[in-house]
């Protein structure tokens, strides 16, 4: 069980230089997890708690080209799941969503993000406790940054009206995305009855 206190760079586990070996093939789509991708493809990164359910949520969205489960936002290079679970890497469980810009857009993904978890829970999500389960948006460019911040501003009053606290979502620049182990990739496709902790607030985005 991870701690709900965010660690510092000095406290973080050392990690390793070797990248996590993964099968470069999406279990549902058959497409490359790690590129190369067609020119219409663009990356987005979301943390919404345990990444199993989150990944399935996004690969089921129209216009999503490929997804992957992984870690971002912390200090430890090339961490293992076990390390991330301790909370001592600083990473969040994050899903990389590669979307086809001709078929969908970032705003639509943000709507999906806000409506499918509770972004006010700080260092936990549902019953999953720890900094690795925090709500997070990691943007890849200024446009995503602007839209993310704008969407938060629009959603906060809706949540407040429904009695929720302030949004605690981390909105930051995307840094290196570390792929999770093969076992965790497209987990709920391989194990349809596995754990899914996804639960929204039932507060609509618009």
């Amino acid at each position, binding site marked *: 069980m991870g701690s709900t206190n965010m660690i510092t760079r000095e406290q973080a586990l050392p990690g390793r230089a070797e990248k996590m070996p993964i099968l470069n093939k999406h279990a549902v789509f058959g497409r490359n997890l790690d590129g190369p991708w067609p020119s219409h493809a663009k990356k987005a990164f979301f943390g919404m708690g*345990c990444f199993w359910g989150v990944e399935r949520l996004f690969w089921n969205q129209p216009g999503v080209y490929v997804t992957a489960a992984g870690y971002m936002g912390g200090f430890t290079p090339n961490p293992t*799941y*076990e390390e991330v679970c301790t909370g001592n890497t600083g990473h969040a469980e994050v899903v990389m969503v590669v979307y086809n810009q001709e078929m969908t857009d970032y705003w639509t993904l943000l709507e999906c993000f806000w409506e499918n978890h509770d972004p006010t829970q700080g260092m936990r999500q*549902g019953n*999953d406790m720890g900094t690795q389960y925090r709500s997070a948006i990691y943007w890849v460019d200024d446009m995503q940054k602007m839209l993310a911040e704008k969407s938060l501003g629009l959603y906060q009053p809706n949540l407040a009206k429904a009695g929720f606290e302030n949004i605690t979502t981390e909105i930051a620049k995307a840094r290196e995305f570390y792929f999770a182990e093969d076992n965790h990739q497209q987990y709920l496709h391989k*194990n349809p*009855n*596995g754990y899914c902790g996804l639960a929204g607030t039932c507060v609509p985005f618009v």
Partner: protein
Amino acid sequence: MHPKNPHIEGYDFDHLVSIMPNLEAHVVVNPKGRKTIDFSNSESVKCLNQALLKAYYGVAFWDIPQGCLCPPVPGRADYVLALNEYLDTHAPTDVGRRVLDLGTGANIIYPIIGSALCHWHCVGSDIDELSVANAQAILKSNGALSKRVRVVKQTNRKRYFQGVIQKDDWFDAVMCNPPFHSSAEDALQGSERKRNNLKRQVQKRHSKVVHKDDRLNFSGRGNELWCEGGELAFVGAMIKESRQFAEQVGIFTSLISQKEHVAPLIKQVKAAKAAYDIVDMAQGQKQSRFLVWYFNKVSA
């Protein structure tokens, strides 16, 4: 094992440890070089179950108090799958099924498996306060599960369905894993036998885990293990009371652990003017079966 049993190929410990790192401390290697756990260590078995339930059944927050029965998951899954298959054959439906698990225990394993694998909606009943409280706690921590499962306390220790099946309720099936033994001493002896068998196996193995736990991993609380008259009396009384609920239940079923009990129980089913069936199951060396009885015609 049932062909759809998720554990038909055994436990993939690399996978399970990968999704629940806590399990790693419990993994040992057997003389054949295969990964396993010490099944006589209750903490190890509980941890294995937690990993299985998260990996395959959608339940990430499952715990049982010390001393409560910790069920072996594959065997439990077999009953669920065999029952669902029986229902598919004799009472096919497009609508989700409702199943009552009589004596669901602190572990609510049948509702967990039934809702995950067969999308059942379940009611689990139990006479034991502690079990009901723990079951409620499990539901509280697992949102998806709580949408499909309800736990009810049976306040009358001499009743099975009364007070649990409400006036307008319908259940496609009742399932039950009855208390096996007829006395506490009997239950203890049974546990001892199991423990000694396992200990003999464990002694041959290098075990990282030293434990002082005297009780067997799968052992349980009194109600879970024994009742007056044992299995025969329990199921007999269940058959008698089931008549009153004939219009509200599609089929009644119960595991029968002792083959010798089948014939006398069939007699009681006939005396209650119900039809019956026996469904055999096999789990490795173990042969088991459940008795089916029903008052309304089901398709052949």
